[in-house]
């Protein structure tokens, strides 16, 4: 009961600091808008508008009917961009979450057990890290096939080592502390100690890293889709849309500018929010 109260107090203090941070607030507002767009898209816009092709309405400039104009197949760019937010957010969150789970668990194991296990896992992680992560993701997508799900799995696996390293170093600073010793003396099992004692106390930097990595994941996903190794063509992924727009960008620059701006705003909002989160969680790190 008392522990709960302390935790709530800490949360309140954290929230107060977060609200005072200008960049965090801007990030949260922008992020909120994009999430609302992504959630409302299927309610406000019928899905056929995203896919239905119409030769009569090819490459129309933005107008009252088509806010962002139409693409080369006569599809409404506004509808596609809104649905695109769903894909990008899904990939970003899912990839970050999966690399957090896999990397975090491995990091926890290495930090907690140390010794041989630590050596072996970290050597493997070092090996994976010495392959450029975009190229590794490319190989994995090639093996699994291009789709949103495979894309996030590929990106999560290729960025797992960074998470493993971070989780390991965050937990190493906790593992030796007295309350872990106490839990062990008390007779708690290893798994229980890792998840109940060590993990919650090492969570700060891990959460910050996860949030900040989402922006990078969204950018990488768009890049991979752009070169044709990610989400495939009829899907309204932002990178895929840009790749389709490429031959027509001279006549219709809006086809290039609009999805690009959405990618930038989304990535920017995650970065702003992540930085704010870092400052609120750890005021000392701010310089």
């Amino acid at each position, binding site marked *: 009961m008392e522990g709960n109260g302390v935790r709530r107090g800490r949360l309140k203090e954290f929230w107060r600091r977060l609200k005072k941070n200008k960049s965090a607030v801007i990030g949260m507002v922008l992020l909120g808008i994009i999430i609302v767009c992504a959630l409302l898209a299927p309610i406000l816009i019928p899905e056929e508008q995203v896919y239905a092709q119409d030769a009569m309405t090819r490459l129309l400039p933005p107008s009252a009917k088509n806010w962002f104009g139409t693409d080369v197949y006569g599809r409404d760019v506004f509808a596609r961009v809104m649905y695109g937010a769903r894909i990008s957010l899904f990939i970003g969150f899912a990839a970050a979450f999966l690399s957090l789970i896999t990397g975090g668990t491995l990091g926890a194991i290495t930090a907690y057990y140390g010794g041989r296990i630590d050596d072996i896992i970290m050597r493997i992680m070092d090996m994976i890290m010495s392959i450029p992560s975009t190229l590794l993701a490319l190989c994995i997508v*090639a093996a699994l096939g291009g789709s949103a799900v495979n894309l996030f799995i590929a990106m999560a696996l290729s960025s797992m080592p960074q998470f493993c390293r971070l989780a390991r170093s965050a937990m190493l600073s906790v593992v030796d502390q007295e309350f872990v010793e106490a839990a062990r003396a008390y007779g708690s099992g290893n798994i229980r100690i890792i998840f109940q004692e060590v993990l919650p106390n090492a969570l700060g930097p891990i959460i910050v890293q996860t949030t900040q990595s989402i922006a990078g994941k969204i950018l990488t996903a*768009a890049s991979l889709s752009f070169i044709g190794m990610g989400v495939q063509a009829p899907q309204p992924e932002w990178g895929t849309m840009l790749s389709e727009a490429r031959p027509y960008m001279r006549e219709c620059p809006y086809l290039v500018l609009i999805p690009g701006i959405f990618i930038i705003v989304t990535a920017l909002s995650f970065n702003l929010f992540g930085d704010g989160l870092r400052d609120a969680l750890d005021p000392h790190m701010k310089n």
Partner: protein
Amino acid sequence: MLRYILKRLIEIIPVMLGIAFIIYAIMSFTPGDPARLILGANATNEAVENLREEMGLNDPFLVQFFHYIWRIVSKGDFGNSYKSGQPVFQEIFKRFPVSLNLAICGMIGSCIFGIPLGILSAVKQNTTTDNIISVIAMAVVAMPSFWVAMVLVLVLSLRLRLLPSSGATSLKHYIMPMITIALANGCSVLRITRSSMLDVIRMDYLKTAKAKGVPNRVVVWKHAFGNALLPVITTVGTIFGSLLGGAIICETVFTMPGIGALIVSSIKSKDIPMVLASLIFLSAVYSLVMLAVDLLYAFVDPRIKAKYSGK
């Protein structure tokens, strides 16, 4: 010092093996039959089956991998490209100069963009200038580099007709890729320069230098930046190493015949020996660059040099 270099070089070998194993494993999962790929769609099933047997594709995965490594160790043979039939390194070495030029341009561009702005924002910490620079950096980091490349092509080649939009035959071809890479990687140079400078600026010897009446410019560039250089070198070195093979996006958008573009097209066409050899080559180059960066420390920082010779 020599022993240290040798040790580092030997350490590269197991890493190469590990990478080869990981990529080999992943690529063996890719759908598509290499034998069918080589013979074409019109070949008979029998011919395909014969070639599969000849190439050892019917062997268990570990046996295949062992054969692959054994051929490399005993004969230095990385295999032939499935697509062209030529030894893989012929193509890789042909393309390496483009990637090298691109990486050098990109590194210089990142430094030009990152270092002065980083120093400026550290010197003017918490002023409007600092804030404006950090806002710019934030926005630039959020831009996907393929989009930056497209906008550059749109404005500079299609509208203003100033620069060629594809190819790698003249210096002009490298200007837009350089800007693209500089924007994508310059921000990390900027950040590390700023934070490293902030650490140094609070040091007593800078106060001493200022008190002695050393001009501000000399204090900033020589005394402060000189001492803040180490982390910047690491970052720039890492960027250079990863650019050597990682400028995939730039090479694709500007259709430059570099190694990044080679890897992408090889992955797409399931040219496994080419993918493996390029990735092993890139990782080796990357490891060598990182070793060079570590050695560079000794020249920049006398304290580290003393440590090497002490051993």
